[in-house]
Every structure is written in structure tokens, then in C-alpha cells.
């Protein structure tokens, strides 16, 4: 009989929590790739993206992490296929990577979120 047991005790739960905490710390490390990367955290709330202006260098891989402070929103970069839904408040983070060429990219909420939905816009400015 195999006697290889997994005890589920408070110590293991704590170990799990500690591992999760360690993971939070490692979040800052980011993924290493050849292209430069930039983490961009954007919060959406009726009827604002904060920040609504993101500056970067052309060719930088933007790790865009989006969180909503209220209802579900959308994140669409006009002229591209980037279009994703942000979960509601407390339901998690939506992530997408985007590598801009030099130029200005307008982004906007693509999920109707209220009377001021059309004001919800921002811009990514990628310089040479």
C-alpha cells in the first residue's frame, strides 16, 4: 500500500498563502523578452480610464493590465483587433499585450456602460 500522504492542515494553507504572496512580489519582475516591455496598469470607471494617456517608445511591448472599479467595461484600441472585456469590480483583471509602432492610438470603452460611455477614451502615444 502506498503511504504517501498529503496532509491538509493550517500549515499547508499558510504555505499556499505564502506562495501566493511570493507570487505577488514576483509580479513586479515581469516576463523577460528581447523587446523592451512596459507594464501599464489602467483603471476603468464610469466614464474614465486612468491614466487616459500612456506614453511609450515604438516597439515596446506594452503589458496592459486593466481593472474596473464598477461595471464591466470594454477596452478597444481603435484601428486594431485589440478589443477585450474588463470584468466587473472585484472580479479580476483583464490583460493584453500591444506593441505599438510610432504614432497615436486612441483607445476607448467598447462596452456600453452608461450615459457618458462615449466620453471614455484615451490615447497611447508611441514615439520613435
Amino acid at each position, binding site marked *: *500500500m*502506498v503511504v*504517501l*500522504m*498529503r*496532509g*491538509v492542515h493550517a500549515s*499547508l*494553507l499558510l*504555505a*499556499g498563502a505564502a*506562495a*501566493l504572496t511570493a*507570487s*505577488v512580489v*514576483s*509580479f513586479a519582475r*515581469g*516576463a523577460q*523578452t528581447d*523587446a523592451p516591455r512596459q507594464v501599464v496598469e489602467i*483603471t476603468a*470607471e*464610469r*466614464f*474614465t480610464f*486612468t*491614466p*487616459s*494617456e500612456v506614453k511609450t517608445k515604438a516597439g515596446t511591448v506594452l*503589458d496592459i*493590465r486593466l481593472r474596473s*472599479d*464598477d*461595471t*464591466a467595461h470594454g477596452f*478597444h484600441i*481603435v484601428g*486594431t*483587433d485589440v*478589443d477585450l472585456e474588463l*470584468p*466587473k*469590480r*472585484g*472580479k*479580476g*483583471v483583464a*490583460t493584453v*499585450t500591444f506593441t505599438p509602432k510610432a504614432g497615436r492610438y*486612441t483607445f476607448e470603452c467598447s462596452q*456600453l456602460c*452608461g*450615459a457618458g*460611455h*462615449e*466620453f471614455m*477614451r*484615451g*490615447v497611447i502615444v508611441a514615439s520613435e
Partner: protein
Amino acid sequence: MLPSSTVENYLKAIYQGASALTPPQRLLPMGHLASALGVVPGTATTMVKALAESGLVEYEPYSGVALTPAGHKLAALVLRRHRLVELFLVRVMGYAWDEVHDEAEQLEHVVSDRLIDRMDEMLGRPEVDPHGDPIPNADGQVKPQESQTLMTCPIGAPVRVTRVVDQDSAFLRFVDRHHLKPGAAIQVEERDASADSVRVRGEGDRLITIGTRAASKLLVQVTRAALLLLLAALPALAQDAKKAPALRTNLSGYMDFHYNKPEFADGSLDFHRFVLLVTHSFSDRIRFVSEVEIEHALVEGGEEKGELELEQAYVDFLFSRGFNVRAGMVLMPVGIINERHEPPVYYGVERPFVDTVIVPTTWFETGVGVHGEIGRGWRYRGFVTAPLNAAEFSADEGVREGVQHGSEANTGRVATTGRLEYVGVRGLTLGVSGWSGRSGFEFRPRFDVPVKLAEGDARYARNRFEGRLQFAQVWIDNADLLNDALIRRVGVNPNIGRVLRGFYTEGGYRFIEGARFGDVGAFGRYENFDTQHRMAPGGIRLPQFDRDAWVFGATYWPDADIAIKADYSVVRNRSTVIRAPNAFNLGLGWWF
């Protein structure tokens, strides 16, 4: 008693190895298992024999190993933990998808079933992890997936990437770099056996050439658009379906159901607002937005019942983030509530008094104007609209009844309105608004009743706290001439004030947040408002219109878009004769 991490890793490896077998082959060769686990065959055999003794696997010497039903379920639950942890790390904790496998390898053995179930619920019972791998349910069952690889899917057919079967972080970064993550819409252009390559057309018409080994690790499904193409031979329709996100019609809305119990009077149930929003995008640059509202549920001609209102119906011409043109029925850009009035976003069953009798929300009017955002959070809006009708002003409700609502609105003298707003700091909105127009067009002989409104507001909402502050003042010039004209019309002096003023401050705090059953918050608001703050010569200032209100209450959000509210408002005025009633209110409001 639960199995160790070693046992779980063996069961998982057998599960995954067996899934790649081609029927009728049922047993996973021991060499494959040892290779997958990175151990020598002798070690694997010793362990498998022990697992067979415990009833978790069937072992046939010189043939291989297979999971028993008990072993199959245990393996599926390990994968469930692994994949949910991966998804949690990506979605909630912001990890990149190529960072999570190693973390999940550790955590899959230590997280409890209870924690996993909470993660599953929080993530909305997902069916796949960030790599597209199916997540078994709590019984260890997996929803069957029908996929092909990039080596077997039809050439030229639009497909969507559903799964990446290699979790190696370098390979995942390769997939990411080439925009081939699950969800990516692509099609295979060519397979070149001699060059050992596959050419793929990716999103944005990007051409990518990858090796056949990489192509065999990417699973895809033929998209609905492609099926339409194949079945109905309607390429144009398929193209439209691909563009659907930009060219769509949306239906949305909000509702507000109230119970109001004023002091010294019977309570009433009121379906206060039923609002439907219909929007349509003609293109990325031209949008139509409408908002139709039924107030108080019932509309009957000529009776003092509800209202059917067209609150918004405009076309936006979106030239750039900084400059856009809007025309049609538009909301006046004044104050906090007028443009931000979905029930779950504000505390209190009823809107603030200041946003009722000083700023006449919901204030909408026909007009044309511009709006945009400049720099890091500076916004402007400016409109030319039909003016207020001073003949409908009153001492009690100020300019509220003077809104023409775009109904054959007189535009003999147009009004202008504008707002400047700063939203550059997360959670903070600072705004100033103004409105100016001549409103005496209905009187003969005609005389001017210039009306001006100035307003300033601040709102800060961060984490659990939300605070609001708003001040608004209205000036009605020639109020004495207006009162005289109305005396001639109705026979009594309406005593319309020359200056109307109001302000409120509010604080709210979510003392329960993120609980399984939702959020709970409490708030308090103080308001001071006077529709006769200053009188014109000849007017009589009535003390009952100089009012204070304290409103206290709570809101329960079972979902971010549903608010169940309760509050009690204490209203006091300066009159010793006429008393303003306190009120208890209950409300159910939602947005969808």
C-alpha cells in the same frame, strides 16, 4: 488521507500522456511516462507498482500503465487546481501567461479544495485556463473540445486559436510575440513541407511563418464566420461577421424601483425609472446613442401621471480624442448626477435635492456641440442648445419646469453650456460647469430673462471610500419683470427668486467588500438649498424654500450592477408654519 505531491505528479503525467494515445491503444508505455517525469524507467516502474497497489492505476508489465476511475478523478482534480491557479494568477494577480506554469506546479499540491472552489467562483466558472487547456469541474469531468492543429486545419479558412499545448515559457513568449495566443483570429495560408514551415495570416493581416513543430502545438477551431463561409458561400457576410465588434447595435438600460414613505402620509410604490439605451456604431468614427425613459411607469395623455422622455438621442462624430462633434438630444454637462445617474453609482434612493431643484436633472435638451479630452485627463464639453422657458419657473422648484426637452423647443435666443473637468488622478473628478441663456421668449411684448448657472463639484472614489461635494448657483436676471408678467398671466405673484443656491457634501464607505454575497456600504449626506436665496424688488421671500436636508442610509450591492438601497431623509426649513416632511425610502436599482 490525501495523496502526496509525487503521487499527484505521476497521476497527472499518466493522465496527460494517455490523452495523446490513439485508440485502441490504452496503456501508456513506461518509457513515455519516465521521460515525461524526467526519471529513469526503473524509478517510474517502482512508483507505478505502488500506485497499482493503492488502486489508482492498472499496470501491465512490458505494456504500460492506465488510470483506474479513482486515479483518473484524482489526476483531473490536480489539473483542475493547476489550471485554476494559472488563470487566477493571470486574471487577478496580473501575471504574464508565460510566468504561471511553474507557480501552479507548486501550488497545485497545497491549495485546498475550498480555496479552489472560491477561485473558480470568482473567475466565473471558467472552462479553460490562459493557455486554452480545459479545466475539469469539481467532479473531475472535462467538457470535450474539438480542435485541430495548425497542421491539420483547412488552408484558407478563418480559425481561432483555442489552445497552446506546450507550456514552456520560451515557447509561450514565442506565441505571444507572434500574436498567436488563444483567441487570436488567424488563417493558414500555406504549408510548405520542403521548408518545414507553415505560413499564417494573423490579426491585422500580419504574415507569420512558423515551423511545423510549433504549428503542431497550436490548436485551433474553425470560426463561425468560416462555417458561414463554407456552408453558405457568402464571403461578404463572413467579412461583416469578422468586423462585428466595430459595427454593432447595443441594447442596455437601467431601472429604478422605489418605495417612499413620507412622514404623515401613506407610502407609495413607484417604478420611478425604466430606461432603455440603444446605441449603434455606423463606423468607428460615427456613433448613435439614445436613451428613452418612462418615468413613474404609466403615461396617460393629459393626466398628472408619468412621463415618456427621450433623454438622449445624438450622433457623435469622433474625429479624435481631443475633438469630437455631437448633435441631437444631449445631456447638459452640469454637475455630477446629470451625466452619471445609473442607480448603482450613487448613494441614496432619490437623487440629491440640489440635483433636483437647483440643477434640474435629468437635464437634457436639443443642441449641437463639441467634446474631447486633452493631455492627461483634461476634458471639455460645450454645447449650443435651446434655452429654458422662464414662463415655467417656480419658487419651489426653481428653473426645473423650464426645460424644453427638445419638444418643438424655441430657439429664438440659444443657450450655451459647457464643462471643464479634470480626471487625471485615479478616482478623482473635479469639474466646473456653466449654463447661460435668455429665457423670456414666451412673453409678449418680449423681454429678456437672462439665466446663468455656475456649478463646481468634486468626487473622489477609491477603494472603499467615496466622497462628493457640489455647489450650484442660478441667477435669474429681470426676475422682477418675470414675476410681474406671470402675475398678469396667472393672477398671483409666483415669487420667483433672483438667486437660487444649493450645495451638498456626501461621504460613503463600503464596510463589506468582496464578500461572497456582495458589498455593503453606508453613507451620509448634508444638503443646503434655497430656491429664493435672493429676491428681486417686490418679491416676497418665503422661509419654507430655504431648506436643509440630512440623508443617511445604506446600499447593498449583490452584484456591481445591482443596488438595493435604504435611506432616511430629514428635511428642515426656516418656516414656523409649513414643515417639510421627513421620509423613509427603499429602492432597487440595476443596470444591464
